[in-house]
């Protein structure tokens, strides 16, 4: 299609746009060691510290394990070190083995077995060194944009999000889908009030039913707990930015996926297809967890629209930030990659969409995003809550 980039082709066929060595802790108890080992090694090593405990109820543990495995399997990862304290329900060896089925090198580090943190750090450094040699064998080669999985996110929304940044990113998604790639947006609570529009765009009755069911489940959580979604959605910041209701926020939010048919919806952290068109993921509205879900699903590049301003990034996937708020661009341009606020001066949505798409191709080709320059990285895994488990049991 004339849009190519140089990427790292993995033996499972997926193409990475970066070649990081991931350092993946299985619990909060191994997170500090994972971060320390990665920091000591250098920028090529990327830790994914998180807050989840050593023991979780089964459905929650399965989801955590899926995200840990998906994180290591992301094509931007050239090799992975899985770190555990040694008391976790999740077994580091199993996680490493599931990552290794993509053909990349993996190792594990068990803090208790190495004899405490001092030894764990020196052992970890040694193992990371070996993994770096393995990852360094990858060479950049020609790849096509159709091989990209583009994760689309919004955070710190205001009224400009639905008018400028989201439709512009949507226009970029349309270009990518037209070229044969995959675009994915999520944040199911932000489908509430716009689900009828999404449902009408589904290619199958099954996808349509699934989307409506997921929206009902997220909305039902509020009813189950006897709380009013208005306290949290739109957030106080969204409200200050002009968004009055969740319906208004959702109607603006869904435009970031573009206008192509919806081909499916996958669970949180599940693998997203390549050459898949527009595919949704069922995630919470908390943006860091939502980005991580899509990265675990295989997204090599993420775009993040913001009206009020955000510094967010991800350890493994470059995050392209786009704002439609001219004041936010003036204040925070060193944290934001694309200015979509120009639509208020007359630039067309399609023209801004073309700039977002060009940025996507350049970033895939190695250009670092503002968040990458500053090593602004956030990582959090969604934990299924006890109330959700009850709902699941009760159907």
């Amino acid at each position: 299609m004339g849009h190519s980039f140089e990427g790292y082709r993995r033996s499972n066929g997926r193409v990475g746009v970066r070649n990081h060595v991931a350092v993946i802790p299985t619990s909060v108890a191994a997170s500090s060691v994972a971060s320390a080992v990665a920091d000591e090694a250098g920028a090529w090593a990327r830790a994914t510290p998180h807050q989840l405990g050593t023991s979780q109820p089964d459905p929650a543990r399965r989801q955590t394990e899926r995200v840990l495995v998906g994180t290591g399997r992301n094509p931007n990862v050239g090799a992975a070190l899985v770190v555990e304290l040694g008391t976790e329900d999740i077994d580091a060896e199993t996680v490493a083995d599931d990552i290794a089925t993509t053909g990349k090198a993996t190792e594990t580090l068990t803090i208790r077995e190495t004899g405490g943190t001092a030894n764990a750090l020196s052992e970890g450094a040694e193992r990371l060194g070996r993994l770096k040699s393995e990852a360094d064998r990858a060479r950049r080669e020609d790849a096509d944009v159709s091989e990209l999985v583009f994760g689309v996110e919004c955070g710190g929304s205001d009224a400009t999000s639905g008018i400028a940044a989201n439709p512009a990113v949507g226009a970029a998604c349309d270009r990518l889908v037209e070229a044969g790639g995959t675009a994915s947006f999520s944040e199911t609570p932000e489908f509430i009030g716009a689900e009828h529009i999404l449902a009408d765009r589904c290619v199958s009755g099954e996808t349509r039913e699934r989307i409506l069911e997921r929206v009902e489940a997220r909305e039902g959580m509020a009813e189950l707990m006897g709380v009013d979604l208005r306290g949290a959605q739109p957030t106080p910041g969204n409200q200050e930015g002009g968004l009055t209701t969740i319906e208004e926020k959702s109607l603006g939010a869904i435009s970031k996926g573009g206008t192509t048919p919806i081909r499916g919806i996958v669970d949180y952290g599940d693998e997203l297809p390549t050459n898949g068109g527009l595919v949704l993921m069922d995630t919470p509205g908390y943006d860091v967890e939502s980005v991580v879900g899509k990265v675990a699903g295989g997204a090599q590049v993420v775009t993040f629209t913001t009206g009020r301003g955000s510094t967010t990034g991800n350890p493994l996937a470059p995050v392209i930030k786009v704002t439609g708020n001219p004041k936010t661009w003036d204040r925070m341009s060193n944290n934001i990659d694309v200015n979509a606020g120009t639509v208020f001066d007359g630039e067309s949505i399609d023209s801004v969409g073309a700039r977002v798409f060009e940025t996507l191709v350049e970033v895939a080709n190695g250009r670092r995003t503002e968040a990458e320059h500053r090593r602004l990285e956030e990582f959090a895994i969604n934990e299924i809550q006890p109330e959700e488990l009850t709902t699941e049991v009760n159907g």
Partner: protein
Amino acid sequence: MKGRVLDDALLRLSASDNVGTTVDDLESGTEIDADGRTVVLVEDVPFGHKVALEPVDSGGEVRKYGEVIGTATQAIEVGEWVHTHNCESTRGRGDRAAARGESA
């Protein structure tokens, strides 16, 4: 951008909308030519917020993007700021379920 900007001041995203979105911080008293009708702001309205282009009855639908975004909690006059003080969501209302005795 989608929709039409009225008098360089208000963006009407869809012809069926009864609110417009300000494209700048606007002061009380600002007069906006909305397709031949004059909308006078009765209060200051910040950038990105909504202004009623038509009167809305209490309990009436507030429309933006050509869709219903909420209901008016009180009567709204043309030129008024439309936000959480006079418009509310109809979705995710666990408080109403609780009032009906349906919550867990």
